[in-house]
């Protein structure tokens, strides 16, 4: 039987409308704005000045802490300004504005398409390449990859899971790279496997992507013949269920291990990396290519078939430019989302720029997304059945509305992964996650304050 995670989950229609669209190159606009806060942790510090000429792939931001990342210019041009600019939610973040000129790559970057398969033996060199090329997790959290690949002393990776679940409806960028760049992904997995000391390595893909499964299996077979670095890498077919791509759920599905509350995957010997991250690791290590491009899906039920796209974009391109290049926003769209419909962010500012983790421009109509009025909880337990963390959202909602902090913590609100299954499945339209998210923030602050005092 195909594996999946053991607790909860929901089955939204997967709506992978753009699955058949080959990845196309998005043109570069006149101006790009590169955010210094594209990763989890401290924003990078700009290291260029207004008037500087920068090349494609040149460092323009340096990490400002242990959990932080390098930021590179995705274009060649002149720095026009450095300063605060609203991101997609309207929050002011430092951006470097660059007026684009003729593309010229920085020295030392291999821009050819030749696939390099011989993994360097020096792990320190590999980790340095991953760090200096600004690789972060592209599955959603944008956690700096080199940190995740350096387990703290005493902890050992026993399983490396490459996340090809892409469980969010509509998104197809991971699917496309698994079909078009399978070798690069497997080589990236081989590199990470070596750095982690050769743990069991599993590429997890949901069963609604048979072509991706076949393509990845073929790549693994081909490479394992060429080099022992790739032998033993498994492709595991998973039974489709949201949120399979959640780190905790994927570890449960693949390895039947559960991360303890407030713990990290490495505590149970697991490291999870997205397929797009794996490709970025390949680019960084084998090509010395920084993370300056990514793939995103332009989709939605209200978008005509010929305008559905999977695009390779230069990071820092404004969303408005992507929308303009793909024929504009459909008439009946009311919401534009960056990310999937279950966990993605609604964009309030279309002039905001893409970042390393941008995975989609998704249009939703009013009928799809406008919330219906809330009514009484009928205690149907659908939220309890849906919660992949085994929590009781109906109870957390009630406790939160009454401000019962201690009870919220006892009932494990801090374990919530904000996947949205509860709100999605509630027939009474109670904004469960909205309430829980806010209360979880309060509880987390209280927990942190308490542990700081100790």
């Amino acid at each position, binding site marked *: 039987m195909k594996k999946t995670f053991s607790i909860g989950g929901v089955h939204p229609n997967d709506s992978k409308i753009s699955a058949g669209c080959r990845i196309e190159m998005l043109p570069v606009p006149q101006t790009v704005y590169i955010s210094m806060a594209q990763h989890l942790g401290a924003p990078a510090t700009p290291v260029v000045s207004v008037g500087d000429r920068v090349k494609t792939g040149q460092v323009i931001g340096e990490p400002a802490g242990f959990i932080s990342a390098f930021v590179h210019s995705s274009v060649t041009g002149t720095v026009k300004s450095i300063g605060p600019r609203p991101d997609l939610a309207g929050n002011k973040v430092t951006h470097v504005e660059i007026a684009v000129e003729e593309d010229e790559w920085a020295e030392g970057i291999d821009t050819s398409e030749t696939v390099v398969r011989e993994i360097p033996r020096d792990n320190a060199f590999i980790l340095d390449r991953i760090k200096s090329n600004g690789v972060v997790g592209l599955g959603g959290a944008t956690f700096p990859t080199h940190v995740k690949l350096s387990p703290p002393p005493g902890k050992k990776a026993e399983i490396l899971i490459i996340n090809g679940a892409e469980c969010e*409806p509509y998104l197809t960028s991971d699917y496309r790279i698994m079909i078009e760049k399978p070798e690069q992904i497997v080589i990236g997995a081989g590199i990470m496997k070596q750095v982690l000391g050769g743990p069991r390595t599993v590429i997890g893909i949901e069963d609604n992507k048979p072509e991706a499964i076949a393509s990845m299996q073929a790549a693994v077979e081909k490479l394992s013949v060429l080099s022992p670095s790739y032998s033993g890498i498994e492709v595991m077919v998973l039974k489709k269920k949201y949120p399979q791509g959640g780190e905790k759920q994927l570890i449960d599905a693949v390895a039947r291990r559960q991360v303890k509350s407030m713990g990290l995957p490495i505590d149970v010997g697991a490291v999870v990396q997205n397929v797009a991250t794996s490709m970025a690791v390949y680019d960084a290590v084998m090509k010395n290519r920084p993370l300056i491009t990514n793939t995103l899906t332009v989709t939605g039920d209200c978008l005509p078939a010929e305008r559905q796209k999977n695009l390779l974009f230069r990071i820092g391109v404004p969303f408005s430019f992507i929308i303009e290049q793909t024929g504009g926003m459909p008439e009946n769209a009311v919401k534009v989302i960056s990310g999937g419909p*279950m966990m993605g962010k609604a964009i*309030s500012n*279309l002039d905001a720029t893409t970042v390393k983790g941008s995975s989609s421009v998704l249009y939703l109509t009013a009928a799809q997304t406008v919330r219906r009025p809330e009514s009484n909880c009928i205690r149907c*337990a659908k939220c*309890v059945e849906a919660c992949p963390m085994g929590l009781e959202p*109906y109870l957390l909602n009630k406790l939160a509305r009454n401000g019962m902090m201690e009870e919220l913590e006892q009932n494990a609100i801090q374990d919530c992964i904000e996947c949205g299954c509860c709100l*999605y499945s509630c027939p009474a339209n109670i904004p469960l996650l909205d309430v829980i998210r806010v209360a979880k923030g309060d509880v987390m602050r209280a927990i942190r304050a308490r542990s700081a005092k100790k």
Partner: protein
Amino acid sequence: MNRLLVSPAPHLHVRTSTASLMRDVVIALLPTVIVSILFYGWREIMILAVSVVSCVLLEYLITRFLLKRESTVSDWSAVVTGVLLALNLPATSPWWMVLVGAIVAIGVAKMTFGGLGQNLFNPALVGRVFLLISFPVAMTNWGPVQGFVGNADAVTGATPLGLAKEGGVAAVSSLDYLDMLYMNIGGSAGELSAIAIIIGFIYLLARKVIRPHITLSIWITVFVFSGIMWLADPSVYTDPVFNLLTGGILLGSVFMATDYVTSPMSTAGGIVFGIGIGLITMLIRYFGSYPEGVSFAILIMNSTVPLINKAFRNKKYGR
């Protein structure tokens, strides 16, 4: 340019709503309603009409004029209560008794607690048990009633469980299980046809309105408990198949024990709840003074739901 809607994730929502779920319960009850009308004719139509209309109207009046809130009748839950109450009454019930049942069900058991979602006890069952205690003779008057099919005598005057209580196992030895399965046993409208109820059960499962754990744990408990007793002394205790097919076990286990509001939240809790209902039902049937105990069993277990919700929880991830 379009105006942008901004709200927190998730941005999609299931198509089901409280109203669609409740409407599905009504649809699942239709086979049983049709069988009861065929067998009890115009009287059953009158009872259904009085029950549904008074339940809906009462909820409307109470929300609008007593509580001064927006009416909640569009959620179909009052219709469910109305149909269930009607199916729990004998076909001989006078209209005023049905009305009293509806007033207790909606007025007392549901709206005094705050309406749908807040009530501790299943409203239709509270209505039925109130009538059973207040009007014991009328509530056990099984006819004869002339229906649209067959003649009035085809439906016996007493329920199989009533016969068994009076005359022991010998009194029901001539009854045919196939009759029970189809439609031919005396009792409340909802006790007529096991097949009709099972069709409704399958519909509810297929539409994912309910999960089967509560219903099945009641069936298994009734079957196992009565099986043990029957094996111990078949001359005193009725057999397990008889106990599953007669009385309110099927209607109660499919439509009333699974009531969202008054059943436990977790799977384990639901199973404990079902076992409790099965055990109490059989204890009343074998040793109590009433021939049937499903209503009491469900109401008693309803009162334990808050405790069950505390004691039996789903396993949390990583804990």
